[in-house]
């Protein structure tokens, strides 16, 4: 039977919801589904994974026990697991970590990898992804012994497929890495990562200054949204570049994208055009975004956002 593995990412002790979408992408082939997990997370993830159709959960360790975070070590250990179990197809997320690990695995195996896929066909070895920052879409075929795909977070929804998974340990043999991870410095943990958020509320020129972004953070909290920004707001120094959505920032696919005081340049759209629903709040009815969205609110964001925050707080308590 054909075997397909999904590289699992964890966040706060749970399987990242976006990984479940990647697992659903693996369902279309009637393959035996493996989940590869690291660092003692197998037990915590087993229930979620078997509820989504995973047959075997492989926890990867090394001769020295759980492998601490080091992208080079994780990639090499992952490869050993693929080879041991004779798995030729690997899916993961095109998240920051997924891009890092999948690219390393692909490079070390000299294997074909399509990154940021919105759809895959594992029997045909094809994948669909955006090109030219969302201005075109292309279909690719991977050719070779291995087939690797990084799925765009949120591009596919999770499909429950209850079953029973076996938990197994795999011990990799690792040499000293040429990369030395000195420290991982935690960011602001209460903030949701842009690329994996269901809702993003973004601010642009209309925010006027750095302090005004606080109203977006306050509005984001009760709906567990991430806060983004346009290039104008980043270049003006109001917020950090890590929040930038667009061509030279992050590409996001939330279920809802709320653009506040953003005119909607081609470059901004390149980063968010695949959002499920785009909502624009802008004083200028002629702003480009007001014609390229699903809901247009022609009003002052400083009136609307606080009102929205109040309503959301009432609902979520």
């Amino acid at each position, binding site marked *: 039977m054909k075997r397909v593995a999904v590289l699992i990412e964890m966040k706060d002790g749970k399987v990242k919801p976006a990984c479940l979408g990647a697992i659903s992408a693996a369902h279309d082939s009637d393959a035996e589904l493996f989940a590869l997990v690291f660092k003692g997370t197998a037990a915590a993830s087993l229930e979620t994974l078997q509820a989504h159709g995973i047959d075997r959960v492989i926890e990867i360790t090394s001769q020295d026990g759980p492998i601490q975070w080091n*992208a080079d070590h994780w990639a090499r250990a992952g490869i050993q697991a693929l080879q041991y179990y004779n798995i030729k197809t690997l899916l993961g997320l095109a998240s*920051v*970590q997924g*891009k*890092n690990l999948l*690219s390393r695995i*692909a*490079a*070390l195996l*000299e*294997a*074909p*990898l399509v*990154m*940021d896929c919105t759809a895959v066909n594992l029997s045909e070895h094809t994948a669909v992804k*955006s*090109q030219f*920052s969302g*201005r*075109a*879409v292309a*279909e690719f*075929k*991977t*050719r*070779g*012994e291995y087939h690797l795909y990084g799925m765009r977070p949120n591009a596919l929804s999770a499909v429950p497929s209850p079953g029973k998974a076996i938990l197994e340990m795999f011990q990799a043999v690792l040499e000293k890495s*040429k*990369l*030395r*991870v*000195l420290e*991982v410095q*935690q*960011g*602001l*943990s209460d*903030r949701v990562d842009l690329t994996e958020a269901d809702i993003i509320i973004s601010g642009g020129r209309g925010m006027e200054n750095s302090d005004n972004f606080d109203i977006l953070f306050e509005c984001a909290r009760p709906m567990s949204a991430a806060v983004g920004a346009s290039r104008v707001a980043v270049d003006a120094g109001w917020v950090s*570049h*890590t929040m*930038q959505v667009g*061509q*030279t920032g992050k*590409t996001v696919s939330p*279920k809802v994208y*709320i653009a506040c005081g953003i005119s909607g340049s081609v*470059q901004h759209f390149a980063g968010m055009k695949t959002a499920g*629903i785009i909502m624009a709040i802008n004083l200028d009815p002629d702003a480009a975004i007001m014609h390229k969205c*699903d*809901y*247009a609110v*022609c009003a002052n964001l400083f009136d*609307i956002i606080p*009102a*929205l925050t109040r*309503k*959301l707080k009432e*609902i*979520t*308590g």
Partner: protein
Amino acid sequence: MNIYVCVKHVPDTAATIRIGTDDCIDENITFIMNPYDENAVEEAVRLKKQTIDADVIAVTLGKGTAEATLRSAMAMGADRAILVKSKSSHDSISTARALCAAIQRDGDPDIVFTGKESVDNEGFQTMFHLAACLDVPVVSNAVKFAMTDTTIRVTCEMEAGDLEHIEMETPCVIGAGKDLNQPSYPKLPDILKARKKPLTEIELSDLGIATPASRVEMIKIESIKEERYPEIIDGTADEIADTIVHVLREKAKVLDG
């Protein structure tokens, strides 16, 4: 010290992409240096300034027109450039093989900088394949860089603002993130000087690269015409907020309450 910077000539981020009948894009548009590669060039030039004897060499794989991007890199401070000429497009495995061969033919690299991604193909992996070809360590999404003797310290951006501090020895490959630096824009004298700087052209076929056993092949491409038809939400601030909540809850189903 040899500092190589791999750059890519890409369609302007504002250009309209039209796909022709042969699945190639209409190239009658402006091309620029890939934005993240500007950060890579900038960091290479900064490092050169701190070092006594260093050369910055810009390298690209592309058509003859890619010379413009190499000239831009030289205007930003690169000393010379190598253009590996090829008319066809390449996946990241064969691009990395070509860049690796061109670099190794030229000299021994101490550091290779490149942008963390290209804005046209968005493959995110050429620097990893290049590092594997050169058999050196690699990091991507670097936002801070420092070098002491042969030890490199980099800070890489991870998820949700987390930062990873990494140490490695040269030679190595570094994928530059946007926050690594603020690229300085060349002044006219620099642009004029760049025209006279040495540029070596190599035909890809002269590098004698073996065809990789695996590859990613594009089988179809089309431009996206995404149309959305806006529904206007009107009323007082409270009414508008109610409607937004309704959309979030009923249409998008993203609210729990």
